[in-house]
């Protein structure tokens, strides 16, 4: 019985520790690793998707090769904006 009681108090202490820690962690760390690993492929993916959209639209409107050129640059711009957005989020967390 005594053993059980002491276990319960210890459990309470540990629980309160966990609560405190999780609040602190929320503010400090957030999800930096996720954001950092996002950056690299995000840029390339936007360029690729932009170019593919341009290619498809070129086929539809028969405007080769203008839309693929325009959408390549739009894709690059989208990639840039992806990176700027991620960087802004990282600074907010900081």
């Amino acid at each position, binding site marked *: 019985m005594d053993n059980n009681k002491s276990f319960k108090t210890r459990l309470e202490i540990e629980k309160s520790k966990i609560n405190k820690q999780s609040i602190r962690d929320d503010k400090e760390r957030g999800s930096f*690793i*996720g954001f950092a690993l996002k950056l690299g*492929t995000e840029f390339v*993916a936007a360029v*690729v998707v932009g170019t593919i959209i341009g290619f498809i639209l070129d086929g539809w409107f028969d405007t080769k090769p203008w839309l693929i050129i325009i959408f390549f640059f739009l894709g690059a711009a*989208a*990639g840039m904006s992806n990176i700027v957005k991620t960087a802004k989020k990282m600074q907010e967390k900081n």
Partner: protein
Amino acid sequence: MATNPMHQFIVHRIGPEIKLGNIDLSFTNSSLFMLISAISICAFLFLGTKEKKLIPGKLQLLSELFYNFIAKMISDTAGSKAKPYFPFIFSLFMFVLFCNMIGMLPYSFTVTSHIIVTLLLAIFIFIAVTVIGFMKHGFGYLKLFVPSGVPALLLPLITVIEIISYLSRPVSLSVRLFANMMAGHTMLKVFGGFVISLGLLGGWLPLGFSVALTGLEILVAFLQAYVFAILTCIYLNDALNLHH
């Protein structure tokens, strides 16, 4: 043939050929290893939570660790509103993690090193997040593509850029996982091939590299599963808590 580093990625049929119209539905080694990882996840979690001891055993500790890890990650990145989606993100993380880790065993097949598998997962997440966004905010979800405080002249351009950036999500999500897994396994195989071709005299250096790379690959296998899950959380956060 055995020293070809790309040989390990070949998908071949196991058992009889099953065809549905023009679609090949045969059971392949890829499906076999997906099944193996799904079964091992179920077995692991079932055995881990069978005896609900106050002082957990090793398996119970491990499964509780995974649970806490994902639960904390979701509340950190997507807030309390994302709680109902815990089962989905947990199973996603476990599936990717187990596929990656089982791929690290010798003679096994890495399911996630094929872009079709990762792209399908990513497209499913993309569609689900979009549907959730429209369900929560109605047509207000389209505000995601129209950032506030932009001059009217630039608005069409910015909207197109935002749409491209939104559409690039599944591509970046799937390419990251697939490229990491495939590059790592190819590298392991290349260094393994060096050990054989350099023989007893010069093979020790690539052998050392191989051992070090195996450690790195185990880290990458875990990290990529984590990144896959956390990015799902980030996208879910955009859909649930709309702000711009």
